[in-house]
């Protein structure tokens, strides 16, 4: 009797499972379509002529896979220039903020001195205040040191605003490293500089990689700072160039160009993501369960 019951329950459970599994796949599948469909549409429209976009069905294949739109966006709209600017700014800022952030976090985490706690709280404040509050005076600070509307000016601003996050994450990381090793290094005669660069920094590689990924995405996506502080057309970064496709009245009629510009912007990051997605997911896990 009880065997029959268990059997029955198991079979009912099996049918329940099937229902749950199917509905799970339906729900997740629908969301995947919502995510992917606009991207596919953008990708296909990037190959279409203006007339095709306006009169044709949105999801039809382009009649020819020509690259005129891409060429036009790259050359005429100076997207190539913007991509170069973005790469320069983001890479320089990334290297600098990782270096300065690691140094600052190391000192805060492993040395005791007057004002240490004050600096820590100041960083916390810098992390929570809206960037918007600072944007107007920042404009004049950069102007007074002569780097407004220049790439170096943008780089140091990126570094300053990415610093609190970097320091916070690495602070916990450096605290977790065993103290014996740095002591051994100093007994062996290594100075503070050498201890950091040859002993401590190599041990922090995994933490550095996680923070670097987040900083890269954050800086690559930055829009507000360049839009307020970097208004010269030749110095535009990618996000500014793409935004101008929409707000600029002249481009309203050139849909294909706009879509090609969007594709050029997202493909490098999307490809990088697909390659590095394991590391990225590892970073999220590490960042949240610390």
């Amino acid at each position, binding site marked *: 009797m009880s065997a029959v019951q268990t059997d029955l329950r198991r079979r009912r459970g099996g049918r329940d499972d099937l229902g749950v599994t199917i509905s799970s796949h339906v729900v997740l599948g629908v969301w995947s379509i919502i995510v992917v469909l606009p991207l596919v549409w953008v990708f296909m429209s990037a190959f279409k002529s203006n007339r095709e976009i306006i009169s044709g069905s949105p999801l039809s294949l382009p009649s020819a896979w020509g690259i005129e739109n891409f060429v036009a966006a790259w050359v005429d709209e100076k997207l190539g220039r913007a991509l170069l600017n973005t790469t320069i700014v983001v890479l320089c800022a990334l290297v600098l903020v990782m270096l300065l952030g690691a140094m600052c976090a190391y000192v805060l985490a492993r040395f005791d001195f007057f004002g240490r706690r004050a600096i820590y709280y100041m960083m916390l404040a810098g992390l929570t*205040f809206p960037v918007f509050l600072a944007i107007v005076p920042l404009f004049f600070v950069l102007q007074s040191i002569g780097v407004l509307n220049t790439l170096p000016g943008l780089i140091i601003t990126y570094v300053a605003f990415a610093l609190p996050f970097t320091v916070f994450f690495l602070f916990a990381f450096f605290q977790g490293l065993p103290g014996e090793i740095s002591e051994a290094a100093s007994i062996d005669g290594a100075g503070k500089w050498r201890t950091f660069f040859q002993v401590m920094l190599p041990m922090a590689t995994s933490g550095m990689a996680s923070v670097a990924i987040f900083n890269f995405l954050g800086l690559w996506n930055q*829009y507000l700072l360049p839009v307020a502080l970097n208004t010269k057309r030749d110095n535009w970064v990618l996000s500014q160039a793409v935004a101008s496709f929409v707000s600029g009245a002249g481009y309203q009629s050139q849909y294909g160009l706009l879509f090609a510009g969007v594709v050029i912007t997202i493909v490098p990051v999307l490809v990088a993501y697909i390659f590095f997605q394991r590391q990225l997911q590892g970073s999220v896990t590490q960042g949240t369960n610390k």
Partner: protein
Amino acid sequence: MTAPVTGPGVSGLRSGARARRKARWTFDNISFFLVFLGLPLALFLLLVIWPFIQAVFYSFTDWGGFTQEFDIIGLANYERLLNDATFKTALGNNIKLAIVVPLVVIVVAMIFATLVTVGGRGIGQTVGVRNSGFYRVVSFFPYVIPAVVSGVIFSKVFDPSNGLLNGLLPEFLRQNWLGQVSTALPASMFVIIWGAVGFYMLLFIAAIKAIPAETFEASRLDGAGRLRTMWSITLPSIRENIQTAWIYLGIAALDAFVYMHVLNNSGGPDNTTLVMPQYLFRLAFSQNQFGYASAVGVAMAVVTLVFAGVVFTINRLTGGTTRSN
């Protein structure tokens, strides 16, 4: 840089500091502190803290921005703020965003994370649905697309004449999504939600995976169904993560400048999608009212802090202080 990472907290400060050997005034030591602490700190003070302090000061002046002359006018800017209908509209929109966006994102991300991790077969070991890796990777796509580009994409998806959405819908459902009062704000919210769900889904997946599998098994053996398990086991176990997510999403929604600026540059029909940062930007850079713009900025900072305080209080009132361990 708004990646949701729970900071190490103050407790880290006390247990920290190991190297307390007597500092000697050698060149190595002095140069070390000057460069390692002085350099980052100088940059941070000059470009972050100093502008913040200045902004608070300017909010008490009538500074226009172009001339060097201004008068200190006390609280006049704040008085004006209280009677400014446009500001109130913008504040209201930000508050709507800060309520709706986190709620929808967290609920949806939570459901997806549950399906991916424990939505699979119910007997024996708890497992997620098959091919969950695929859903995880795809859902995360929007996070790697810059917010401004998501905005550009959806400004075209919602385009009334040849956008994707109207192209897929039957004739009688077609709308001017971003151009009419009733749909402009919900459509804009959808774009923000689209961009955020994947990231928070990943965050919750990581949190759920950190719960020991035995806990789930025990609840299953005790006869708890899937919903019950989610409500009584999963949610309490990851409430800290949910609180963090809520704060970050709320702060992002109280800003929302990038999305709104790209989707509806002018603030939308009847200012229905105007947000505070847009208003600040307009005041500062096109109307040259830097003093008043700074007051708007200070108000934004206050609203953000109040919001964080409210979330903490709610969490504490509902029993958040009794952490599972």
